[in-house]
Structure formats: C-alpha cells, structure tokens
C-alpha cells in the first residue's frame, strides 16, 4: 500500500535542510518558495533515504490571485508519494525553473502547462506549444480565457 507522506513530515524535512523554503502546508501538500524549487527537487530526488525518483504528475491550477504548480512525486522502491506545490503570483511574468534536469518525465508535462496555462519553465530544453498550434494566441486553461 502506498504511503502518502504527511505534509507535516515533508515540511519538517525540507525546513531542516533549507530553513527559509517552506511557505505553508496543509494536511495534503507543502507549498515552497519558487526560488528553492531546484534545491528542494535535488534534495528529494538524490537523498538516499527519500529517493523520490519518479515524477508521477505535474500540473498547474489558476486561482485568479496566483497560479499553483503541483508536483506529485513518488518513490517506486519505497512506495511513497508526496505533493509539492509552488506558486507564481505575478500574472504578467509567470516563470519557474524547469525540473527536467531531475525528472525527464517533466518534459511534456511542462510543455503542456506552458501551452495551456502560459507558465514558462526556464531551462527547459524545448519549450514550445505541445497540444495547440504554434501561432495560437492565449492559454485556454486560464480562468480569464474567453473564446
């Protein structure tokens, strides 16, 4: 049975490494600051005791005030899963570092978020639209999108 890691435990683990990183956590997910994303990703993936080597899912949600990018990370050996979130608050400059360097599986998922929600991932090897055509304007999954 998969162990869903309590957000409290993950928050404690991350805070022990990077005291400034965690913004808040509820019973499901931990929200971290975007500038710590790569460091936390490196820690979660490469720490022997954690080894979150499998990016299960990556998506984003438009909450009007901010965009939330949601990472579901799994460890196949230890059968654990956790939810990590990062927020982008500036609607005019939506940027996050890409995690393709750690999980190659993020490639298409980040492109999809870029395509449908308009968040740019810095350092992505091939960031362009994936489902819609190149000269399409707008990002349909944004809440303000009107046809």
């Amino acid at each position, binding site marked *: *049975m*998969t162990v869903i890691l309590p957000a409290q435990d993950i928050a404690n683990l991350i805070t022990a490494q990077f005291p400034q990183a965690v913004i808040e956590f509820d019973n*499901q997910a931990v929200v971290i600051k975007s500038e710590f994303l790569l460091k936390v990703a490196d820690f979660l993936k490469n720490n022997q005791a954690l080894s979150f*080597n*499998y*990016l*299960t*899912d990556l*998506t984003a*949600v*438009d909450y009007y005030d901010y965009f939330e990018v*949601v990472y*579901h990370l799994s460890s*196949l050996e230890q*059968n654990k899963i956790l*939810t990590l979130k990062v927020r982008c608050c500036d609607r005019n400059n939506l940027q996050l570092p890409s995690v393709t360097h750690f*999980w*190659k*599986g*993020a*490639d*298409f*998922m980040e492109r999809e978020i870029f395509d*449908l929600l308009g968040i740019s991932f810095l350092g992505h090897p*091939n960031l362009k*639209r*994936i*489902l*819609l*055509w190149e000269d399409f304007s707008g990002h*349909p*999954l944004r809440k303000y999108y009107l046809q």
Partner: protein
Amino acid sequence: MSLNTEQFILNIGPSHPSTHGVFRMKATMDGEVIVELEPVFGYLHRGIEKLAEQRTYTGIIPLTDRLDYLSAMSNNLAHCIAVEKLAGIQVPERAEYLRVILAELQRIASHLIAAGALLNDCGAFMTPILYMLREREKILDLFEMVSGQRLTYSYIRPGGLAQDVPAEFLPALQKVVTDLPHFFDEYDQLLKENEILLARSKGVGILTREMAINTSASGPVLRASGIKWDIRKADPYSIYDRFQFEVPTGKAGDCYDRYWVRMLEMRQSLRIVEQAIQQMPAAGDIQTKVPALIRPPVGEIYSRTEVPKGELGFYIVSDNSIAPYRYHIRGPSLLNLTALRDMIVGWKIADAILIFGSIDICMGEVDR
C-alpha cells in the same frame, strides 16, 4: 570505404497507418538511420480538461470514454473512483466485483489490439491482428450486452453502475472466460518463438530501467524494463487486494519484452476475472444513492488507477460546486512517449515503426 551522405528530414505521419492515429514523427535521417526525432502531436486535441470544467461529475463520464477509446471502461472506472474518493461515496459489493470484471476484460481487449497492431507494424500484415480482433469481438459483445455500446460505454457511474447486468451476461461471460486460455495458447504457438517477430523485436528499442523511471513511463512499458510496479498491487483501489495475481516483468526492456509482458498480463487478468466470478454476490444493489448533482467538499485529490496502458491519474480540484474547478488528466500514453526519442535514435526507419508500436499509445489520450 565511407560514403558521404547528407542528412534530410522525413515526416512520418500525421496521417499514416502505422502511427496509430494522428501522430507525427519528424525524423532527421542519415540514409536509413534516424539521427534525431521529434514527436509532434495535438492534432486530436479537443480540450477535454477545459470542457470538464463546465460539466457535472456524471456528465464528464462520456468525455473519459473519449480519452483512450480502446479502454473506455477502465477510464470510466478511473474517473468514478476519483469522484467517489473526493465526495466520500461508497460502492456496493456487487458493483465492485462487476467493475473489476469489466476493467480486466477491457485490459485483455486493449492488449489484444496492442499485440496485434505490433505484429502489423512488424510486417505480418493483417493475419495476427485478425486472430486478436476475433477474440476482442467476444469481449465487446459482452460490453454491448451490459451497456448497449461497443466502444464508448459510459457504464460505470459514481456510486456503482448504470444498471444491473442482464441475466444472459454471466453465462456468456463464463463461456468467454473458459475459451480464452485456449486462444492465448494459440497466440503463443503462433508468435512466441516466431522467427520474424524475434528477429525484428529482440534487442530493438531498449528502454533501460533508469530511463524508464526517469521519464515517468508506466504500465507494460515500465514493467518490460524490469520494474515490478503495478498500481493494482502497489496502491490497491476498488477491491484488487482480494485477488491473487502476479505482476509480469521483462528483463531487457526491448520491443519483445513489451509484447511479451502484455501477453502474460492477459492471463493474469483472466485469473482475476475467474476469482471475481467466484466471489461475486449473486444479487444485491449495484448503485448507492448519490445526489443527481454531486457536490464534493472543497478540496483536491490525485487518484490513480492501472489502466491497460499504464497509470491513469486524475487530479481534481473541487470548489463545492457541481463542476470541478480544475480537472487534470495524467494520461499514460502521453508520458510513455517521453522516452520515444531516446528509444528510436540510432535505429533504422523500419525499426522506428516497430518501437513506436510497442509503446501502444492511443492518440485520444495523448492529445485529450
């Protein structure tokens, strides 16, 4: 003596019989060898995630049919399990068993297409796939009996099933279950040690263990690379913890292993169906009372199930209204394509068709 060659770009697809839908491979060729490849898709994009934001939770079910349309029953189940978890709905015992039976039959039907189409890509044109379609028809007949549809069932609903199965379903199911092992043996006799299949697929398109994990591959593609990972075992949903079955894995991670893992999985699915028929209560409710408009409490869920092609996950954010605030689909077909470039580069064009076919994708799920 070395020949000077000039590289050129070759478009394979989007409309080509061996791309299994509208999929395009932009291949840079050096003679017959592929040196670079870019998968291009989106031709079948219908905006299902956006459409779902304007539909009720029951109204989304027909949309899930149109994800991977070769395994609509499994998609219905995956969606309903996510909604049930989110809204706290219990499912009656008899419905759980029928769901498992249908989902496993769907797995067999989908794998039959995958294996048959792979042989088609191999050059064994039409003969093997017709043998496979013959058996798939019998499973589709069962689905038609319960839902009236042959492809887009919309039969599994939050809280149970649309209606009980007709009286003639169980005898017909029993006949299919009794006959199938014989046909599996027939396939093995035809194909398992077939010289053409072995020569074409052994050692071709290897996906290493590390690469499979790193690229978020799932389902038979992941298992063929030697990783024993099946959501039915790792994170049991519905009533899968009540059944005995094995998780077959491959060793090499080549095209043959992906084919062979599917053939073994079909036998395991049949084992589950047999056990479910044995354990299923003869009568009882098939649907709990759920409100006509489901309003799950504010919250979010990531729910995953093992569909024929891999891990199908739904990330649903609810704002306590009748429609989801955000409905994200994690399709196994899309993510299994992430490793496509690395698997194909260095192989000849005829092998590329086979490697692509061995991943077994459905464009409805890639493009959504």
